[in-house]
């Protein structure tokens, strides 16, 4: 199969993936820096390049509400948003997962107000981390494209049936032009297959009620079933990622280890920062510094065991969080990893670093400095620091 090489920004890549998925319904609302996804997709609709019914809703709350209605009606449904838009959707984010609707959403990670800011950090999507969605981060436009396609399979898998959120980093990925390998439309269609819901609202001969009130006697069981679905998705995400790799050469897992197995010092990161870290690691390795990276691709479900295993032989690990849990002990990635490591007999020393809030740049020198501090034993274990902020 011949891949088609294109120059695309992250937003263009995600919009293209959506076009090739060719969903039955897209309901969306514009917001910086995700607007382009909606805009480009609208053009596909206007040009008759997709079969999609596009609903240009009046708010993100209605976007997710319409997606919920659409998906429950048996339509393959997608949307995209960012930041305040995701925050406005928040109520419906929980409901989409609770109703077990396999909606696929592109979220372009952007800081939350206040102060208002349009640039990247992960606080928007991290705010939804307990909602029940599968939550996939992208290092670059290529991953965003590939994950959007895989997301459909993951969401609709009979053992999962949960919504999936694929994120990019606002402006860094969303607006950065990259060379990406894309697939022919037919290959995407073959890969995702047909959406075959267990039941749907338009099957009028088999009426059913979705969204019923659950009191003390049933609510807990339904929420517990959602936990099982999340756990099941660990296997499904790996299977889908492996199948994608088998067919299209680039496989995907829950995490990615980069120069990690023999590393003495390592960082853990999500999203675009991983790309920067890889370059730094190559340079440090050339100088004989055994530096490594653990990239977390899938934050929900959290790959606890894989992460604990991947880090067990490292001496010191710095966990980078591009969002904060204000008033908590470290950002969400740090607390999850620290918890994942607690049960390991062999575990590294670990420190948390909150960085890059509101799009504050993280450069190679900072990452290199961090590695050198780790190596020199200058990083205090079980501490949380703020990187790149004027204190």
């Amino acid at each position, binding site marked *: 199969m011949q891949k088609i090489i294109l120059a695309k920004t992250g937003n263009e890549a995600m919009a293209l993936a959506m076009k090739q998925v060719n969903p*039955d*319904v897209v*309901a969306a609302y514009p917001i910086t820096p995700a607007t382009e996804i909606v805009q480009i997709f609208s053009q596909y609709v206007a040009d008759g390049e997709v*079969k*999609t*019914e596009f*609903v*240009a*809703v*009046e*708010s993100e*709350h*209605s976007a997710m*509400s*319409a*997606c*919920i*209605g*659409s*998906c*429950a*009606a*048996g*339509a393959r*449904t997608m949307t995209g948003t960012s930041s305040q838009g995701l925050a406005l959707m928040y*109520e*419906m984010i929980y*409901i989409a997962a609770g*109703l077990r609707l396999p909606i696929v959403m592109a979220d372009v990670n952007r800081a939350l107000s206040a102060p208002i800011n349009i640039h990247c950090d992960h606080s928007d999507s991290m705010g939804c981390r307990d909602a029940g969605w599968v939550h996939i981060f992208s290092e670059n436009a290529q991953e965003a494209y590939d994950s959007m396609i895989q997301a459909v399979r993951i969401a609709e898998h009979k053992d999962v049936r949960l919504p999936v959120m694929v994120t990019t980093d606002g402006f860094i990925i969303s607006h950065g032009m990259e060379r990406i390998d894309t697939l022919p439309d037919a290959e995407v269609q073959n890969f995702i297959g047909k959406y075959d819901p267990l039941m749907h*609202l*338009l*099957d*009028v001969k088999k*009426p*059913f*009620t*979705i*969204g*019923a*009130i*659950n*009191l003390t006697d*049933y609510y807990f069981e339904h929420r517990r079933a959602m936990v099982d679905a999340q756990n099941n998705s660990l296997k499904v995400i790996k299977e889908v990622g492996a199948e994608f790799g088998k067919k299209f050469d680039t496989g995907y897992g829950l995490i990615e280890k980069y120069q990690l197995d023999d590393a003495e010092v390592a960082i853990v990161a999500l999203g675009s920062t991983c790309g920067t870290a890889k370059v730094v690691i190559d340079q440090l390795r050339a100088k004989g510094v055994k530096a490594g990276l653990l990239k977390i691709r899938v934050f929900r479900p959290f790959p606890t065991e894989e992460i604990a295993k991947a880090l067990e032989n490292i001496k010191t690990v710095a966990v980078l969080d591009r969002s904060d849990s204000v008033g908590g002990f470290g950002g969400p990635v740090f607390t999850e990893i620290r918890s994942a490591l607690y049960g390991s007999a062999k575990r590294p020393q670990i420190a948390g670093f909150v960085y890059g809030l509101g799009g504050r740049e993280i450069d190679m020198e900072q990452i290199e400095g961090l590695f050198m501090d780790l190596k020199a034993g200058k990083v205090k274990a079980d501490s949380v620091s703020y990187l790149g902020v004027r204190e």
Partner: protein
Amino acid sequence: MANLKELAARGDKFTGGHRACAGCGASIVARQALLAAGDKPVVVTCATGCLEVVSTIFPYTAWDVPFIHSAFENSAATISGVEAAYKSLHRQGTVKEDIRFLAFGGDGGTYDIGLQALSGAMERGHNMLYICYDNQAYMNTGIQRSSATPRGSSTTTSPNGKKIPGKIQFRKNLTEIMAAHGIPYVAQSVVGNWSDFTKKVEKALAKGGPAFIAVLQPCRLGWGYPPELTAELGRLAVETNFWPLYEVEDGRYKLNATPKERKPIGEWMFQQERFRHLKKPEHQSIIDDIQKDIDARWEQLNKKCSL
């Protein structure tokens, strides 16, 4: 229009066994709307509120039609998603039936928190009928005032007190706001006039495009009256001109009922606990204000209807 005999022969799609109060008007709205829909397949959504909680206590449901509830403020947005799915799948040939889409919301979910979603859905032109069962307060949460609550009404958040005699403000005229959207069909109906409501639901569903019906729905708990008076109080609201029955079809206003003699508003108000405090002589001016407002609104409406 289907006659009473025909309606009675149709099986209920909103079935008994739900947990609504004795004398509940909301369940009458749901039952009559689905009876009016007849054999036409419908998909229904409902905003969080009385109607939803009494009819869908898991694992039971009173809805013998496909039904979705998602949240409070988004009944219109949710059904617009269902309708979009239908458009797409019908176009692709995977859904063959001719399906109609019905959304229910109380006044809280429609006049207040759901107004934006409703306005958006109407502007987008979805093929849907939105029915607001307007009982003039947040009854499900325990009788709090909404923008549909009439002046003078004592609710738990506009209580009659030593200084303030119930709600100060007049109600919002949502029906006119919906008419201003320029949609094909807008109407007011009432619990207690089954033929008016049935006719309007039939018309709205037959017309296609977005339609809105506000149904005044007496609530025995929130209004404070014996349950057997629900239909009677609905009719009295029409006879006092408090709640005129009219429709706006393709922009043209039409009155559906004109009382032979307009009854004074006190006849309606003083059968309800929520207005009881206004019986005191010192509050006569409030009653006068309310009467003046009703008469002025009636005059305006008549002008529109004579155009």
